């Protein structure tokens, strides 16, 4: 296997002060048909998806171009991962939980243009997901919908919205549910004549989400940490989880351990993908990085997404058996209920925002 000369090895070698031999070596990564390496910095629950997809893409790229591409992965809470890229984790592509995290990379470090989301179809989200509940086998506490989460006998597990993208979707889905319950029809949010009713509903929603987070005994930093808290450590009665994460947990741990509960309403989560221009150009990987993201929309990419419990944007390419697993649920869009991510982030999740105001460590 040929390793490209990584400058970091030179520095490591200097650090050795000559006490050890020289590290590294190998060929410079050049354009053309030299083997090439891509780093995809992703969020927590996509490990299995990208393991499969990377293998398929590498084979596809080799066949198309004759070039060997090695995909490197880094996983963690989406907010934390975005922070790492901002601090210089040189990702060629990012595949994160929500657009806002990629916006942060664009605005704080200018590593990609502000209009990145328009560069790929469907708001740069090749697959979507939603938030569902995972409960103990047989649903002993009869948890059916968001209302049940604020019951005093229920302990709720969710990651921290400050560090986890999934947790922000959890929070917003709960908020949207409360609004819908108050208003009956979410289109009233757009109607200026209904401003008073909307304001009253927002107050109720805030109360509802406050009550919900009062039921949370532990906030992990990422979705996978929460799943392990719920499943391995047996803490809590219900886990608010990505739909794909919930399916995966059932799959990995056996259907006799947990059940999925689909609430009456949830949110359309659009995990976004983007090329990190500055780093891709620095590495000379732009062409393959763009192809990597575009191929997510291909029939193969869509089929792999559906296989790993992500809802494909082009369902006709997916295996119908995979599609049949997705329950029908009313999905609200963040643009319609919260006026887009930038808005939701500013109001709810920035320092001093609503979440900071309402959250006090739970029971």
């Amino acid at each position: 296997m040929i390793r490209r000369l990584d400058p970091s090895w030179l520095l490591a070698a200097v650090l050795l002060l000559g006490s050890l031999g020289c590290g590294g070596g190998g060929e410079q990564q050049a354009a053309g048909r030299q083997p090439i390496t891509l780093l995809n910095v992703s969020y927590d629950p996509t490990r299995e998806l990208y393991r499969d997809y990377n293998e398929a893409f590498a084979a596809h790229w080799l066949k198309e171009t004759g070039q060997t591409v090695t995909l490197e992965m880094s996983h963690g809470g989406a907010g934390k991962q975005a922070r790492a890229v901002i601090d210089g984790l040189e990702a060629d592509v990012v595949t994160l939980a929500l657009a806002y995290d990629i916006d942060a990379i664009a605005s704080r470090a200018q590593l990609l243009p502000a209009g990145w989301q328009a560069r790929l179809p469907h708001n740069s989200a090749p697959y979507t997901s939603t938030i569902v509940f995972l409960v103990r086998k047989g649903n002993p506490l009869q948890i059916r919908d968001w209302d049940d989460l604020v019951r005093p006998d229920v302990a709720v597990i969710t990651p921290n919205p400050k560090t986890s993208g999934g947790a922000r979707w959890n929070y917003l889905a709960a908020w949207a549910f409360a609004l819908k319950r108050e208003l009956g029809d979410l289109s009233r949010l757009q109607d200026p004549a209904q401003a008073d009713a909307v304001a009253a509903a927002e107050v109720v929603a805030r109360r509802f989400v406050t009550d919900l987070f009062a039921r949370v005994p532990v906030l992990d930093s990422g979705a996978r940490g929460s799943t392990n808290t719920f499943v391995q450590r047996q803490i809590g009665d219900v886990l608010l989880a990505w739909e794909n994460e919930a399916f995966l947990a059932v799959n990995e741990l056996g259907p006799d351990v947990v059940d999925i509960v689909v609430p009456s309403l949830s949110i359309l989560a659009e995990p976004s993908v983007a090329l990190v221009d500055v780093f891709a150009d620095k590495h000379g990987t732009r062409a393959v990085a763009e192809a990597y993201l575009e191929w997510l929309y291909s029939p193969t990419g869509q089929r792999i997404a559906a296989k790993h419990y992500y809802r494909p944007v082009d369902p006709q390419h997916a295996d119908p058996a995979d599609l049949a697993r997705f329950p029908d649920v009313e999905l609200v869009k963040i643009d319609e209920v919260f006026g887009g991510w930038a808005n939701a982030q500013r109001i709810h999740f920035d320092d001093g925002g609503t979440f900071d105001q309402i959250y006090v460590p739970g029971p």
Partner: protein
Amino acid sequence: MGDLVRVRRHRFAGRHDRAATTEPRWVGLLLLATTVVFLGLFLLLPLVTVFTEALRKGAGAYFASFGDPAALAAIRLTLTVAAIAVPLNLVFGVTAAWAIAKFEFRGKSFVTTLIDVPLAVSPVISGAIYVLLFGLQGLLGPWLSAHGLQVIFAVPGIVIATVFVTVPFIARELIPLMQEQGIEDEEAALTLGASGWQTFRRVTLPNVKWALLYGVILCNARAMGEFGAVSVVSGHIRGKTNTMPLQVEILYNEYNFVAAFAVASLLALLALVTLALKTLVERLSAAAVTLDSGLPAAEEI
């Protein structure tokens, strides 16, 4: 956590004086029983669990875990980092201890305190400091990036973070001993015409060799086991910047419990080897002292 335990244990180890007490026998037995139960619950049980979990699906699955390229890369990286960090701290520890124990200078107590900083600061904070320093938005990041040097989220960052957290181990081991020994031997050697280097090599070094070896062993154990600081600067690139402790976390989070505990068991084995070496060094040094002084070692009384 294991590191902390090791540090603590080490602080109290090495003393062989027997307490002459007048308490009834049952007090001693009670103390002994408490210790054994405590150690069993908090040290032995987890250790046994690690190996039980690792072997849950048989030896085949256990050894297959080490065939995974990412696991191999993690093992290789851990060894590389230790191979760089330990010699660096060896040089630094000896230099610092020599300066502090054998020379008088202003600010000596400040330097001594400084060496303890890594023990006082949470490793996560020390990792974050390096991100602030070497990160792209940090002080040196833009310059490094412009020159194509990657420190943070790469091997050098991991090495630096590891060096930081392991700084005290060798120096702390040597300083008290060298202070206790004083400078008479060195003065005698210099009077007899030895050069500075000769004095160091033939007088100072032999006097502290056991403490030095002990420090190296502890330093190595910590270098291989460090999680917090390394986690912050690693970037978690699979097969590239994950050390063994990070790989354990990743595998665990992927529901790959056998592999997670297999890698963990390897770390545990390293710890056990470290403990065995430590005990051996203690025995040998006690034996050496006995020979030197012509008196039986405390253990043999």
